[in-house]
């Protein structure tokens, strides 16, 4: 049974349709990503999942519970990290963890949580003295302090420097390895590609695609390019005769072969038969950015 199941979710604010018929299911132990530009309906979707908003239509089930009717029980078992929510400036790290821990029936080992999140030496620091990365880690700690089965993390690494982002990603993988199912909302392609087992691309309130990151890329991938410098001159027709190859271009000493299917294998086999070595061989593949453009018709960051 899926841990989170969203069926035909609709939500509008006045005349603006924020979420328009969204359905997906998150399986146990997954890192499931919701990717999309700002204003696509990502946050409304997760806020409905954690019971902060009432959907206009559709059903949501989290751990078999209805987020509206069973909100107290749901909140015991779902940890949430919200976008743009702060703590009181003078609240100390340990006080925050201890206080939030006291709200749950089965609080996690708070000391251990501090250590895992690299906040042990900031134990007595007031919130406002923490760096952006430390605030974010404390926020993640608070999402985990109730020993949740599911963690919902909204815009996890916005505003973090590259090192802090990578550290946070490692951390999320560790959390998942401890058996927590993770729903991750992001507008960063690299974050989605690196962390998510599966990914829903939301655009204008609808799911444009749902697959593994590799699957999304493959769907989008119509053509690939193989670029290399042949060790000896070679007749273009050797390549253009291959069914996989659609075109061959010369770029200085380099050849750029465009095609589909198992292009790389086809090209290297022909070269090998002709005793030609492909030097500086590079395969250029579509990435999730290309996939996003193909699936939604526009780039993610605008």
């Amino acid at each position, binding site marked *: 049974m899926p841990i989170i199941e969203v069926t035909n979710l609709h939500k509008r604010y006045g005349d603006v349709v924020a979420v328009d018929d969204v359905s997906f299911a998150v399986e146990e132990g997954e890192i499931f990503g919701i990717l999309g530009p700002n204003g696509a309906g990502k946050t409304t979707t997760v806020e409905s999942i*954690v019971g902060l908003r009432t959907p206009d239509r559709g059903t949501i089930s989290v751990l078999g519970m209805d987020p509206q009717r069973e909100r107290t029980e749901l*909140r*015991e078992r779902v940890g949430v990290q*919200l976008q743009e929510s702060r*703590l*009181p400036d*003078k609240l100390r790290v340990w006080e925050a963890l201890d*206080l939030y821990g*006291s*709200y749950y029936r089965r609080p996690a080992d708070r000391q251990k949580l501090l250590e895992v999140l690299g906040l042990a030496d900031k134990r007595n620091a007031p919130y406002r003295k923490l760096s952006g990365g430390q605030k974010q880690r404390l926020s993640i700690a608070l999402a985990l302090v109730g020993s949740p089965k599911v963690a919902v993390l909204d815009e996890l690494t916005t505003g973090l420097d590259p090192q802090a982002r990578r550290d946070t990603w490692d951390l999320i993988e560790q959390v998942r390895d401890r058996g927590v199912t993770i729903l991750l909302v992001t507008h960063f392609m690299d974050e989605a590609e690196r962390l998510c087992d599966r990914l829903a691309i939301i655009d204008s309130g609808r799911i444009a695609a749902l697959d593994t990151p590799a699957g999304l890329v493959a769907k989008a991938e119509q053509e690939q390019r193989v670029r290399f410098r042949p060790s000896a001159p070679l007749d273009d027709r050797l390549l253009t005769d291959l069914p996989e190859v659609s075109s061959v271009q010369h770029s200085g000493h380099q050849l750029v072969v465009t095609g589909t299917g198992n292009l790389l294998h086809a090209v290297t086999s022909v070269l090998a038969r002709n005793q030609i070595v492909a030097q500086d061989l590079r395969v250029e593949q579509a990435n999730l950015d290309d996939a996003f453009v193909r699936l939604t018709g526009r780039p993610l960051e605008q």
Partner: protein
Amino acid sequence: MSKLVKTTIVEGKLFLREPMSVGFGVLFPAGLLLLLGAIPALREPSPDFDGARFVEFWAPTALVIGMAILGVQHIPTVLATYREQGVLRRLSTTPVHPAQVLVAQLIVVMLAMLVGTALLVGSAWLVLDVPLPDQPLLFLAAFLVGFGAVLALGLLVAAVAPNARAATGFGTVVFMLIMFAGGVYLPRFLMPDFLVRLGDYTPPGVQALLETWSGDLAALSTVESSAAPPLALQLGIMALVAVVASTAAARLFRWE
């Protein structure tokens, strides 16, 4: 219940880390009265007050200052800041309702004001020979409903203010009214009658505090032409303000 105790302890620690609120809300009323008492003309019996002393007459007004600072400045600013920064929203994702942090704040401020009042009454008694309240239980009742009404107004300001800046701004307007009616800017015996009577009905009800603290002085603010309403009516009005304002605040309060 233990969750509320824990939240209250944490909010109490946060309160103690706010030097402005502790300084002006809790310590300042007693400090100001002692300072005024250092001026001989104000601590000695004066024919201007029918042989009574200014410090005795003015002591309840010092209490009004503390109540106004904590009730309509501290409370609205803290709550609106919590809402603006998403503290309340964050809490609503836990098993605890964000109203708990509100209740905790009210408990903390009530306790702080009790301490401030004890300091004021105690230091006025020990240093300035201002007698302890004549009617201690009624004084406590006047304190509780009066401060309750001020807190309810503070909650209402927090409920309607769109952000922390506006909360401080609206709070300041209410603060000025409370301070004025309480005789902070102009001692009440210098005010025209109708303004004196305004103080009977404006939270926290400085007249009720005066009547229960120093009963024989209360007559000073009562002129032949307009007598103060009975104490029960004054307390009843404060209770009414408290109920109406807090009900409105509860209906209008936005958690995010």
